[in-house]
């Protein structure tokens, strides 16, 4: 079953990448782009009988590896 893990920086944590991208977009003529934040999506296919089981596996994987909880938050969805 497919699960999708969204990993994003916690609020308040500096996003140097987002900052540089925002700046570059301005230089390309896209005016007034507000704050740019860049996150990651990990798509996985896990063996699970139910959506709930798949989400739980996704959460376990996020905690174990996919997200760095010191600076990142994550959210898991079962994809269809």
């Amino acid at each position, binding site marked *: 079953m497919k699960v999708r893990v969204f990993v994003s920086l916690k609020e308040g944590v500096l996003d*140097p*990448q987002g900052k*540089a*991208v925002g700046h*570059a977009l301005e*230089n*390309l003529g896209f005016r007034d782009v507000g704050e740019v934040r*860049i996150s990651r999506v990990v798509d996985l296919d896990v063996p699970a009988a139910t959506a709930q089981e798949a989400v739980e596996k996704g959460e376990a994987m996020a905690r174990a590896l996919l997200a760095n909880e010191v600076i990142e938050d994550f959210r898991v969805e079962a994809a269809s």
Partner: protein
Amino acid sequence: MKAGIVVFPGTNRERDMIQALTGISGNTPRILWHREEDLTGLDLVVLPGGFSYGDYLRSGAMAAHSPIMKAVRRFAERGGHVLGVCNGFQILTEARLLPGALLRNAGMRFLSQDCFLKIEAPDSAFTRGWQKGDVFRAPMAHGDGNYTAAPEVLDRLEGEGRIAFRYCGPTGEVEAEDRAFNPNGSARAIAGVLSENRRVCGLMPHPENLTDPALGPTDGQPLFRSLVETFIA
């Protein structure tokens, strides 16, 4: 030879390149700030290594869209010679002046080590100082050097003799599947390619770091000698 070296915010191997070019050609290159657009009078434009814009988003992506790259494109279209090393190669692919793209190294780590390169196409302004099959040593220092392109693009590059350099072992063995020989996992062990008119060249390793006899071996010199000869002729 009149060379210009482009400096983007985050470029960091421009001094290495100045040293190599000055040491071999005797002429000090012109430094070109990324906001400049005038390249008149230059024979060669060099995009040196570094982390332009921090390598954020994708290595070379933001630099590829800066004002000077419009000028570099025009320069290349008019037959000018352009060399991109490391981040410079990444920028040239992002700007579509060279085919393909550079992904994360297969081992997911930054690799700073010497590698060996085999000359596949000695018929360019960049490689004429070598013979086909020659092997030379060069330091590599990159996290995103894993060359990729669609299979038909790779076939075409091979067919047109546009693969300039391949990673190899110390005696020239090419083993694309073996990371001892092809450290970053590049498709078909490709380390550097040429444009259709053979005047734009990009490669990942750093021949400029092996040119000064006071620092060690000088395996990188033929690249710069080739260029000097091209523009004397």
